[in-house]
């Protein structure tokens, strides 16, 4: 059975052409942004030149934690709550990115290679709402 999938927040990412997170990049100072930034925020940048820049791929796990209890609103989750790992990953495109880990705590190791995936994080009104997650390679 195929359930309708919908991003938890519209416009941030897509999965039709592979995992793509929709960010931006300043072409003057090479600073990457996610989500999109309207202008460059690097105080050392001489001239903001922002271009849309989508990215996928992977990176290296910088650190991680566990949501052992359900986070308060506006987080949404399926009941009963199942604890999950939250990773902070140094992506190959130069962004340090936060996201849920698809794998369990026992498998975690700082420095491990991970890859982006789009997976469901909660269900509502017969739909699966999705977000990006990191998968250990």
């Amino acid at each position, binding site marked *: 059975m195929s359930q309708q999938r919908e991003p*938890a*927040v*519209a*416009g*941030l990412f897509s999965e039709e052409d592979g995992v793509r997170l929709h*960010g931006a990049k300043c072409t003057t100072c090479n*600073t*990457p*942004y*996610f*989500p999109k930034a309207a202008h460059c*925020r*690097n*105080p*050392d940048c001489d001239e903001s030149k922002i271009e849309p820049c989508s990215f996928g791929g992977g990176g290296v796990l*910088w*650190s*991680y*934690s*566990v*949501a*052992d*209890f*359900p*986070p*308060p*609103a*506006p*987080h*949404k*989750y399926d009941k009963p709550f199942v604890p*999950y790992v*939250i990773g*902070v990953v*140094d*992506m190959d495109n*130069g*962004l*340090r*990115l*936060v*996201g*849920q880990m698809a794998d369990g*705590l026992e498998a975690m190791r*700082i420095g491990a290679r991970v890859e982006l995936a789009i997976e469901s*994080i909660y269900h509502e009104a017969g739909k699966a709402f999705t*977000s*990006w997650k990191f998968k250990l390679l």
Partner: protein
Amino acid sequence: MQEVVVLGVGLHRFGKTGDGVVGEKSVTELCRHAVDRALKDAGVSWKQIQAVAAASSRFSGGKGWGLNGNDVVEDLGCTGIPVYNLSAGCAAGGNAFNIGYSLVAGGIHDLVLVVGGEVMPKGMIQTSGVEDANDPEFLRQRCVGMPGPSFWATLARRRMFDYGTTEEQMAKVTVKARKCSESNPYARFQKAVSLDEVLASPYVSNPLRLFEICPVSNGAAAAVICSKAMARRFTSQPITVASSAVATIRFDDALPRSLANPVPSGASFHTEAKAAVMKAFEMSSIGPRDISFTELQDNTCYYELAFPEEWGLCEPGEAERLLEAGETAPTGRMPINPSGGFVSFGEATTAMGVFQIAELTWQLRGQSGGRQVPGAKVGLAQTNGLGGNATAAILKR
């Protein structure tokens, strides 16, 4: 610049809604108690106060606009004085102290009341109050779900990787803190805990456990500050404010506060806290090794290990050894949070910066009883708040 002194301080003991300490008291009642104590301690009457610098709360009072200083003035009696309501998340109390300090130092007012109080909702603090796709906090919570404790746990896990810190060592910070709380009549928890008890408490966000994370509390704190010239009328032993500083986070900070940051080129942890503390050192010409004791924001025991190293109170990677040697206890070489800290008080968010000023003042007067730092001459206080806010203050006798 006028020299600024602390004339009097007061607290309402911290507690939890419905308990025997704070019961159902409103934030106005808690503040009233703390302010009355501070005025009495200072020997000053309410009518003499020339301005109020208050911490703005998102959770209680303030007419829903963070007008907590106006609540205090209305309750004590409207005298027409200026009120400054300062918002800086959990750093708001520190911010209010900085504005009070600046008003006196700049010669705008001679006698100022600084106050912060909270009645907190139960459970984990909801960081984002809005459902708005333009709010980075909203995006982080909806797309990931990363509560405050996970933010701290991420840092703690990284420290375990960088320095080999163990879960037992982090638990020992709590044991030390709760030992101090036994002799603090204002702490919410006033009972020591054993290492086994801490390690038996459940994970809130692995690797951090329930007893290693501060809960939310209700409480209030107040301080009366004035110019040194004026202080002579009230006391022969004022506590001097050597410096008070405020800073915000840097672009190259190590941990993304929303969804992502550029990977920083070097270690750049807690850039807001470090900047505030460095500024406080610079303004006062007091160095990290001159500090007798520190009251820092220990939302979790991790910070008691990380902050002293980042501020130069000790060497990087040395904190665990100092802790285990008893050097961070009140009688040690580098006392940290002799009050018992947030872990013993719980966090009445916007009161914390003022609570620290009260503890520093008592310590420097030698009035801290069983938790007294022997011969305390110089104290350092620091707070952190949502939005990348931080404050620091150095007091001396």
